[in-house]
């Protein structure tokens, strides 16, 4: 009994830390609709700054310690304010989620920054003065410091409540969470409001990181460790709901504390399983409300048009150039070109889902990775030839998308995106843990192409055929009635429903098709690399795909193609030339985002429009 009580307290202590980070993320999202990927970076910066400040300030005094913690959070808040004013403010008018891309650039930069300033080694901070020891509870030791954490969570929750309900600022924030255009119409200075919210969010993240100092070594992967968990909590609680975030944090904290007692092997997946169940039952989280109509932003997408004669000529020229590539390129260039083609199809499949279908996915890697595994496993266990494996892979991916999609399409917006993430993580955990079948984290190796496709040239042509064909097929479907149906569902659910379209069903089919095409890319990838590892299903791979689509421009059909080619080529070539490739890539992404808020292709289209070559649009 006493043991269970202590374990309960352990869960509460973890919950408090999670809550601090998640509440900031939730507030930022609620008001500005920014999916702040850099929130984990703020958390990490808070921890590092606290490490430095606590050492500078304290000779082990209580004031020095807590002063350092608060100062660290304040410093992070300043960083947050600067980020908002210098970067994000420029791109509020961009299509939704583009801010995610900008914050992804920040994540990369902060990772290198932390390494440069604080060095590669983990840094263990001091224990909190006066709270070094443990308290005896029913014969069990419980750290004094954890009591402070347990209290800190509800205290911050209370302060936030007072802030939101007892100040004019708070009232405005709550109003803006409901309807930000309305608040703007009331004559409130919106940019000031956004800056202050972002600053508060960053402060909370920084504080969350800083109070970890006595509990764990500060290290340079803290950002990615916390960010997914924070998102999970925000979504389980309901976007924009601080109380919801608190409840969700307690649920996740307790779940981890007790879960490891009952299912020690399930540590990888427990949170995601719970999120999936909660979202299926409550599509807007525990305390969330259906997302309000998002007005403004980038405005409606332009109608799609078949290629103009110039476009047609250019496409033919590109095709000729691609066909002729083996004559001028070496083997390495061809392999990279194959990889670019594969990623292009992967991005195109995601774009089909999120651009055409309006269903944003944070877990598209599931279908890419399951395509890889489908191909590799059939080779491994049935010894089938490569071509058969290239059929089996997409089939596996398609079936997975059929199953996961059935649940996902019933949700919308960020909730849908997070449910796709949950399923991707579940798939990841299954592949990771089922070592006897999938090889676990050691993956499957020896998946090389059949002799006829083994040469880089042959494999390149095969990739060109399948990926090029896949992209053409996706494009064709987009222009076909089914593509129009998906866009109809995206543009106006109300209208689609009232002209006889079964939304859930068609979105489900669209989801499945997108998974299938991602599976083609994934199968090829397995043979390109000769091996498959769980990281093909990881969040990082999903984020890569998202970055490619957003970079190219989500509101254009050519966007994913240009985005994938740009991103992949940049990634491969920069990492060949410098160790600081993350900074370089991050800076390039941010510059691209600010320069081309509609994506690269969106920008080009706008220019053409302005010069009057594309007629009639907003």
């Amino acid at each position: 009994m006493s043991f269970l009580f202590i374990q309960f307290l352990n869960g509460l202590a973890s919950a408090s830390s999670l809550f601090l980070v998640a509440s900031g993320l939730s507030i930022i999202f609620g008001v500005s609709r920014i999916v702040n990927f850099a929130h984990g970076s703020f958390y990490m910066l808070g921890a590092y700054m606290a490490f430095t400040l606590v050492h500078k300030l304290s000779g082990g005094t209580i004031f020095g310690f807590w002063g350092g913690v608060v100062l660290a959070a304040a410093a992070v808040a300043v960083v947050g304010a600067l980020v908002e004013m210098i970067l994000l403010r420029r791109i509020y008018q961009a299509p939704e989620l583009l801010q995610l891309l900008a914050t992804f650039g920040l994540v990369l930069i902060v990772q290198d920054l932390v390494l440069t300033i604080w060095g590669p080694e983990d840094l263990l901070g001091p224990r909190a003065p006066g709270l070094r020891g443990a308290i005896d509870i029913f014969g069990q030791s419980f750290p004094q410091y954890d009591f402070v954490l347990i209290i800190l969570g509800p205290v911050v929750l209370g302060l936030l409540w007072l802030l939101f309900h007892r100040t004019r600022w708070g009232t405005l924030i709550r109003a803006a969470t409901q309807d930000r255009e309305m608040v703007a119409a009331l004559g409130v200075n919106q940019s000031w409001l956004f800056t202050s919210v972002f600053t508060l969010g960053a402060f909370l993240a920084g504080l969350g990181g800083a109070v970890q100092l006595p509990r764990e070594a500060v290290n340079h992967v803290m950002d990615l460790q916390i960010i997914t968990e924070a998102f999970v909590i925000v979504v389980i609680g309901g976007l924009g709901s601080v109380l919801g975030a608190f409840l969700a944090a307690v649920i996740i904290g307790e779940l981890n504390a007790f879960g490891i007692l009952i299912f020690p092997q399930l540590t990888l997946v427990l949170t995601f399983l719970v999120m999936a169940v909660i979202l299926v039952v409550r599509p807007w989280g525990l305390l969330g409300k259906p997302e309000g109509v998002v007005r403004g932003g980038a405005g409606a997408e332009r109608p799609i048009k078949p290629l103009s004669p110039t476009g047609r000529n250019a496409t033919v020229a590109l095709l000729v150039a691609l066909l002729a590539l083996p004559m001028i390129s070496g083997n390495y260039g061809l392999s990279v070109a194959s990889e670019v083609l594969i990623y292009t199809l992967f991005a195109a499949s995601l774009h089909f889902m999120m651009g055409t279908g309006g269903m944003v996915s944070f877990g598209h890697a599931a279908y890419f990775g399951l395509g890889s595994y489908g191909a590799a496993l059939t080779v491994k266990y049935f010894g089938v030839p490569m071509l058969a494996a290239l059929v089996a892979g997409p089939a596996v991916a398609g079936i997975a998308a059929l199953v996961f999609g059935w649940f996902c399409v019933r949700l919308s917006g960020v909730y849908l995106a997070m449910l796709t993430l949950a399923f991707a993580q579940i798939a990841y955990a299954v592949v990771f843990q089922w070592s006897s079948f999938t090889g676990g984290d050691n993956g499957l190796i020896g998946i090389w192409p059949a002799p006829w496709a083994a040469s880089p040239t042959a494999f390149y042509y095969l990739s060109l055929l399948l990926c090029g064909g896949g992209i053409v097929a996706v494009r064709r479907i987009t222009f076909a009635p089914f593509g129009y149906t998906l866009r109809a569902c995206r543009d106006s659910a109300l209208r689609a429903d009232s002209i006889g379209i079964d939304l859930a069903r068609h979105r489900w089919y669209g989801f499945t098709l997108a998974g299938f095409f991602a599976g083609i890319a994934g199968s090829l990838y397995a043979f390109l690399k000769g091996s498959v590892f769980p990281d093909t299903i990881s969040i990082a791979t999903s984020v890569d795909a998202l970055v490619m689509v957003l970079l190219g421009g989500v509101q254009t059909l050519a966007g994913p193609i240009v985005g994938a080619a740009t991103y992949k080529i940049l990634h491969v070539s920069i990492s060949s030339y410098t160790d600081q490739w993350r900074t370089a890539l991050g800076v390039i992404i941010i510059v691209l985002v600010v320069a081309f808020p509609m994506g690269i292709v969106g920008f080009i289209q706008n220019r053409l429009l302005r010069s009057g070559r594309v007629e009639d649009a907003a």
Partner: protein
Amino acid sequence: MDRRTLLKTIALATLLTGGQAGLASAADTIKIGEINSYTSLPAFTLPYRNGWQLALDEINAAGGINGRKLEVVSRDDGGKPGDAVTAANELVSRENVSVLFGTFFSHIGLAVSDFANQRKIVFVAAEPLTDALTMEKGNRYTFRLRPGTYMQAAMLVEEAVKLPAKTWATVAPNYEYGQVAVKVFKELMSAKRPDIKWVDEQWPAMGKIDGGATVQALARAEPEAIFNVTFGADLTKFIREGNTRGLFKNRAVVSLLTGEPEYLDPLGDETPKGWIVSGYPWEQIKTAEHDAFLKAYRAKFNDYPRLGSVVGYNTMKSVAEMIRKAGSTDTDKLIAAGEGLKIDSPLGPISFRAEDHQSTMGGYIGKTDMKDGKGMMVDWRYANGADYLPPSSEVAKLRPKN
């Protein structure tokens, strides 16, 4: 729509011209490719890079190999096997390297090893610990320097069986390395001590340990001893929570890797006392060959070596010696030279076994202690890898026939 093609063509053209530029290189150097997870695991890989750079400088200062200088082309894999294969491909196809070496993570090691097998190029794996690399998934092109999980666990078992403890619990990161380490440790222990009971196991996700809850769960099982495989940030969190909550009081702990400066130094005044660990007590090793290495390393980098530094240094030396012995960069000759290759390392002479291409580099087994708020190893000894190699019968059974 039409401009996109332009963009793409430009991008591709850039790639291709870049692709061609690398081909022109001097013929009087021997190019060697190196890949590691520099950005994702800097704490280990940066000292490792120092290690191989030191060795490279020494080799070239001494006139190179067979009259030719060595040139290492190094790439970061970002912790992703797919990127590692791309890098390996670049090194082999574009840079025309003769040998590949490096890698830290087991799965990346396996990916590059399989690539080496496919492309018929020698790969000397520096760090990957998985036994599969030399056993089930071994191939004739791959050599490995560091003792694998089996060997490391076996070294610790030798000390662990001497403990009186009869009830044991384990805590390990939830992936292959942790799983295999626990499995081997349990098997070897139970074989020598059938009276041992295994009372609990904890599998925190790597990098995401819930310190308090894990410690409490272990405490509940009341084991007399604990076998720990966590490392890095997880280990630090685990130890601090364990210290606060008294988990390690009157309890023996056997812990993999904990004595390595990479993991021991960050613990500072939290370093637990009396744990049986594997590690690298660099400041206490008083052999001539280690002194020379230490002096050269400090002179060059103004820092002390980590175990990674030794691994990098030894790997570079092994590659160089392999080429010298082969008298050529022909792959088959290199393999022939590599089997049974002997080098003098800072830890003493080591050799590569012909049957599984595993080196006999050993490790230091000792106990942890703390002095002036810093962790250190005491009562340590060097465990020669040759004494802990997996039995030849096992290798013959598991390793695919080439």
